[in-house]
């Protein structure tokens, strides 16, 4: 019951959430209709919109709103481990994303069947990569929401990630062979949501992303999935610790 209610709440907490889902689904349809993708363009579009922008929209103020309004004060006086609150809310977002992506897949398959155009053979792997990216972004945004007021967690994440990747792009262009560029690129690539890695996973491009340690190597697809799940886990643990140590006061007396 507790898990169900906390997961359900992530959909019903704000009126705009169902609208986000509908607007995003319409966007996919319009994109398909206008560009009739032959290659994996649709996958890329889905990857960015549902993998990055959707978690920002759905997790905006997921804790920040409750903390700002004081609603959290009643919730955390209930006799259960505070970590459950975090886990089930993140799980709620993840389930929403899974349903959303299945619907997106269904929309594309229907359009493909009706119009007899476009490519859908790689749709499955794009959907999986998108869901994995969604989960890591959602975990990071949810953890940020515990310390950043109201819905600014999403805005902050958007600014930081876009700025970070823009800087790395600039540095890569002008300081191509510098060790510092490589270090910064690694800093962006590994601890942050694995955009590049999952993109290459979905697109079937591997190159330099062969995960080898000494003479050992892992299947690249499995390594990629494990990497993104591990990142989600790390973000979640940070979030759970922050939530457990957070003090909630609205001193007015």
């Amino acid at each position, binding site marked *: *019951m*507790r898990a*169900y*209610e*906390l997961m359900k*709440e992530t959909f*019903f*907490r*704000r*009126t705009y959430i169902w609208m986000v889902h509908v607007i995003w689904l319409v966007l996919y349809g319009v994109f398909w209709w206008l560009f009739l993708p032959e290659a994996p363009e649709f996958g890329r579009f889905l990857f960015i919109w549902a993998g990055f922008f959707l978690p920002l929209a759905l997790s905006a103020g997921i804790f920040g709103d409750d903390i700002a*309004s*004081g*609603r959290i*004060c*009643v*919730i*955390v*006086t*209930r*006799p*259960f*481990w505070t970590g459950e609150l975090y886990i089930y809310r993140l799980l709620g977002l993840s389930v929403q994303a899974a349903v959303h992506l299945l619907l997106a897949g269904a929309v594309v398959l229907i359009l493909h069947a009706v119009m007899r155009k476009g490519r859908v053979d790689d749709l499955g792997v794009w959907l999986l990569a998108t869901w994995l990216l969604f989960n890591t972004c959602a975990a990071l945004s949810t953890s940020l929401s515990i310390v950043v007021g109201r819905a600014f967690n999403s805005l902050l994440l958007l600014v930081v990630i876009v700025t970070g990747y823009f800087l790395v792009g600039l540095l890569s262009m002008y300081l191509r062979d510098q060790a510092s560029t490589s270090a910064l690129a690694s800093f962006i690539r590994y601890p942050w949501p694995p955009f590049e890695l999952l993109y290459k996973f979905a697109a079937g491009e591997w190159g330099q992303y062969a995960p080898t340690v000494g003479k050992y190597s892992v299947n690249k697809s499995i390594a990629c999935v494990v990497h993104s799940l591990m990142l989600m886990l790390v973000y979640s643990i940070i979030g759970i610790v922050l939530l457990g140590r957070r*003090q*909630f*006061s*609205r*001193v*007015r*007396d």
Partner: protein
Amino acid sequence: MGYDGDSTAVECRQLTKVFQRLLESRAKAVYALREVSLTVHRGQIVGLIGPNGAGKSTLLNLIAGLILPSEGALTVCGHPARSIAARRGLGYMPEHPVFPGLYTARAILRYHGALLGYTAAVIARQTDRSIDQLQMQEFIDRPASDFSQGMKQRLALAVALLNNPRLLLLDEPSNGLDPVGIIQLRDLLKRLRDSGAAVVISSHRLGELEKLTSDYIFMHRGRIVSFADKISAGQAGKLHVELVSDGRQVAEKLSPPDRVLEVSATELIIGINDPDEVPDIVSRLVQGGARIRSVLLQGEDIEQVFLRLCKEGA
């Protein structure tokens, strides 16, 4: 009061709470509570009173486990505050309850029932009980976005009572309630007290508190100034003496003169510390030549105690 150790609902020992911003010096820190020690027993209603900024909400938040003490020890229902065991017996109602606008009152009760770990059958039973107890039939299936302040207060109280708490913390519970609602709330809290629960109410509505309890914690600048049960109504008050003759002449003959609070041609108001003083005062007035038309002893009510303590505290 004759309670044993098991009946303790809240126990604070040397509780201090300092609000200090990151990288801020200790000198600039705000001491919201300073070495507060108190005990609240089960079956007791305690009014938490004091001027704005006294530390009432900080104390309530500490007991609810929403914030952590800087120093001192705090137990709730025999367990460390903020622990799951302590929260099991706790009901908390904030001053400004907030509910998700899309949820109906019934859905909100179901949500909190689920957080408490109840099964669907228990939640349904508790919800029905709350509907009857707090007269929520009218709005139980309406979305919270349509609620008036009074409806929100009733629902917040229902949420706080869902787990049959052993300790109920209420922050301005009568905000927005109509007179019928206030009377119902009062009866409900008395029933809770009689069933053995402890109730701590932070409120500025002193008249309402007075109808519920004579146990007060008066706070001022983060400290407990005095338990008002030691200065409860009846131990101090005013004697209104209506006179036929000139009150000013009579007032001069009274000793000590600073006991005369107000004087006019036909009325004397005298401050008294003990009702037993009244016969002596009246006797002295008569001996002094006063022709008395009527005498009225007005006990010092909690508002007057509050004002007096504020003045003394200042």
